């Protein structure tokens, strides 16, 4: 039996992508089982593997973990990416909460109608540049360290890089007013494990397309219209 973590999700980003990033950053090899059919999903349900009938689900260390935040917290703690004490953990939690909220605007993007997509793109860029990026820019400027928290690489850095790249996919020059974040992006991207994850052939997933949306709708029988925030 493999001791590698095994990820159960669609073959696409969604809520699992942050988990792929964190495992990759920690240098942890993982396997993936992609949900393609309704039958596969029902089999998982019947097998009792999904505590709240939902994916993501990750088999790791003898557990069948669900709930994205729970999985991420576990990985961060296990691989020393969660700060050295309670105060650092609180900072990391706050920063990750922010990038989570920002990426939340992007999560539903592929499911929106064409008109709603345009509005949402503008909203994403507005939130990124007026609420979230200024915060991280200031954090880095104020302490002048390479990493967001405690002069040590943490979950917060991985999550922020992921968020930056995702927003850049919506507007490529979105970092133009943020010199600290530009340097941060370059720096974190060159960390060996992350550099590897950013190369073609890694388990990083591409921008979600219509095929991904179809698969999710089919497997989850999620045929209602998704509205923007």
């Amino acid at each position, binding site marked *: 039996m493999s001791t590698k973590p095994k990820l159960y999700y669609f073959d696409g980003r969604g809520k699992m992508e942050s988990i792929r990033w964190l495992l990759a950053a920690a240098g942890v090899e993982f396997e993936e089982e992609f949900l393609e059919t309704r039958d596969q999903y029902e089999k998982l349900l019947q097998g009792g593997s999904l*505590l*709240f009938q939902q994916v993501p689900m990750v088999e790791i260390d003898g557990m069948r973990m669900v709930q994205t935040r*729970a999985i991420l*917290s576990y990985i961060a703690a296990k691989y020393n990416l969660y700060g050295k004490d309670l105060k650092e*953990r*609180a900072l990391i*939690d*706050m920063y990750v*909460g922010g990038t989570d909220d920002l990426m939340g605007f992007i999560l539903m993007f592929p499911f929106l109608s064409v008109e709603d997509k345009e509005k949402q793109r503008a909203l994403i860029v507005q939130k990124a540049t007026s609420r979230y990026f200024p915060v991280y820019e200031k954090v880095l400027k104020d302490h002048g360290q390479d990493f967001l928290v405690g002069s040590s690489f943490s979950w917060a850095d991985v999550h922020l890089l992921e968020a930056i790249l995702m927003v850049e996919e919506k507007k490529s020059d979105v970092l133009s007013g943020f010199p600290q974040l530009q340097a941060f992006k370059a720096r974190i991207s060159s960390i060996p494990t992350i550099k590897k994850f950013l190369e073609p052939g890694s388990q990083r997933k591409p921008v979600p397309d219509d095929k991904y949306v179809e698969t999710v709708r089919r497997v989850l029988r999620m045929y209602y219209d998704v509205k923007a925030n």
Partner: protein
Amino acid sequence: MSGKPKLHYFNGRGRMEPIRWLLAAAGVEFEESFIEKKEDLTKLQKDGSLLFQQVPMVEMDGMKLVQTRAIANYIATKYNLYGKDLKERTLIDMYVEGMFDLYELLMTYIMQPADKKEQHFANMMDKATNRYFPAFEKVLKDHGKDFLVGNQLSRADVHLLELILMAEEFKADILAKFPLLQSFKARISNIPTIKKFLQPGSQRKPPVREEDVAKFSKAFH
């Protein structure tokens, strides 16, 4: 300067209520500064107290904590309501994240436009009785212990009690099919700190009324 945590939020449940519950369960006295008008929020934003311009914000231990989960995680750890090791913390996290999902559904009901309320109500009742409560009933059944995790009181128990009571406000007999959750509810409600919080005069907030929704929205937008 007071050593007590100071909570900045509206005079209502919203996203701060789980934090009030946790502090109360831990027997920690706290102060509250209520945002009543838009200017109250703007002032906090302008003086740099709100990392992402949002509340909840809790001043404690020299920090201005924001982000509900970050605040709750900090309090739970500080007051030993987060399990005894990583595996227990992880179980607690899984359960609590599920509870937050249901909480979100219950909390956002009152904000739905009139033509969406019925559907939202049906969905949240369905999720409560077919997804979330069965999961927690099973957890209790499988281990037969008094508490959800590790045989001692944790934030998971506190959040679940809050959730049960909230759900019952929408449907009084919602626990009809869940005998273990019924006894869980009685048991946890009896814990002295929690019993005190459930009495009139505590800092527990009442359910949001229709009339208050417009008032809250004005302060936020």
